[in-house]
């Protein structure tokens, strides 16, 4: 059981139903998984990431995150081209547990349509969704 009042959910991010977060950085979008997701997964042991230059539509699978408990697919919160992937989490997947919004980020995307960000949830809407699934 996770105490939702203890979750770290930054205000400046948008959240997807599949628990990815997206942060607008100029004309790019950085993506990772939420504090709730990393807690649910338990210790993360491996992250499968796409290649730089790959393109995916919103909702398409871009990778997978593996924990001691399970393997979970990662889905694009916003469509676009992969500009960067976080090499550090290939070596040290525990960074996703330790710092899901910082050093544990996953991909940097050049969005096809920046307005897709508006379809994602705010912190409050995401917290509401997570609370309902508890």
């Amino acid at each position, binding site marked *: *059981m996770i105490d939702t009042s203890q979750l770290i959910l930054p205000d400046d991010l948008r959240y997807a139903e599949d628990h990815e977060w997206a942060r607008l950085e100029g004309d790019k979008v950085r993506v990772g998984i939420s504090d709730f997701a990393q807690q649910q997964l*338990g*210790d993360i*042991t*491996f992250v*499968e990431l796409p290649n730089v230059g790959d393109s995916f539509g919103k909702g398409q699978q871009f990778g*997978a995150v*593996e924990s*001691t*408990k399970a*393997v979970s*697919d990662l889905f694009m919160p916003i469509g676009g081209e992969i500009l960067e992937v976080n090499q550090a989490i290939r070596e040290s997947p*525990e960074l996703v*547990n330790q710092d899901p919004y910082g050093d544990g980020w996953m991909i940097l995307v050049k969005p096809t349509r920046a307005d897709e960000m508006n379809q994602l949830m705010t912190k409050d809407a995401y917290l509401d969704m997570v609370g309902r699934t508890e």
Partner: protein
Amino acid sequence: MLQGKRTPLYDWHVAHAATMTDFAGWDMPVWYPTGAVAEHRTVITNAGLFDTSHMCAVAISGPGAFDLLQLCVTKDLNACVGTVKRPLQPGDGVFGAYLNDKGELIDDTILYMIAEGMYLSVVNAGHGTEIAQHLTAHVGDKDVQVEEVSSKVGKIDLQGPLSAKILEKLLQEPLKVLDNMQYFGFKGYFEDRPRPDDVRLRDGTPIMLSRTGFTGEFGFEILVSRDRLLPVWEMILPAGQDLGLITCGLAARDSLRAGGLLPLSHQDMGPWPFINNPWTFVLPFDDEDKSFTKKFIGDVVLAERDQAEHTYAFVGYDPRKVSGKGLSVVIDSGGNEIGVVLTCVSDMAIGLSGDRIYSIGSPDKPKDFKPAGLSCGFVRVKTPLVLGQEVELRDSRRTIRVRIVDDVRPDRTARRPMKDML
């Protein structure tokens, strides 16, 4: 959702923010806030404490106890201890299995000889009643009593190379108890009962201390009266604090045992012929591995040897897993489906350097060795495979490449001499 059964430590686990999961009808900690990876690694470097009070125990006593067990347990109790295969004696535990008359597993057990005509069989969660009934059904005219005592016994596993040092602080007369204690030996009993080698904690609690475990690492299983479980648990933790002792959940237990080549009953062995697997040392083979040295229930399994399926251990090349419990298939180099995956977990204390597997416990590990983790487990296949052979494991999500091995995590500590661990 139905509430699962709870051990006497349930409230402690919840109060310490354990993530709980259902295991065989019990609400058990799967990991604590330290996380399963740290718990797994700590058992290899220091020590971990596990609540294993969901397991069951059956007491078998009376003049006919030996004959009943010799009929029902796979090991030949007249020839099962050590390399010299001496008879089971008071103070010995032995790993064996109960088979049905078709040679299929009912459950595995550690069978302890407490005294002449008195044995304790520790079996898996949810299987105490079944084993007690199985034994009772075969009593015949033997003078023997079979009693499930699961509700009286609590069990804590203290596992890891520093376990004996922790016990030294807790036991009355620690050196007398621990001195020369062999792998699978035990001393004491979980309640005040006639055993000459009484083992007590400093507060007087009698314990049964067994040099066994389910991690592949050095350590002990501690059986205590169930009503003493919580105070004993709370006594061990502070005693181990300066030695790095932490509590561990079932996830670490599962990954440790798989890397230690130990089978999970009803997953890696089950209702299929108990033969052609890595654990046939529990069968009473003669020196030539051709026939059995005794008759027992399930001995028909010997005739299945040529047609029965084969179970092998495997190891992968990174920590990526597929689903276990029969949900993934095994594919040979010709693309043929040849079997299923029984267990697939990641041993996060090991990794490849070149083509060799090292553990964080390896004395000769490379400098700055950081274990990336390797998937490992067991497959059951229709056709024999050879050591080193590569196969693919496939579930609905992915395919991983693994190789068939006869060992996974190197440099395990389970069998180290006691004198090295004090």
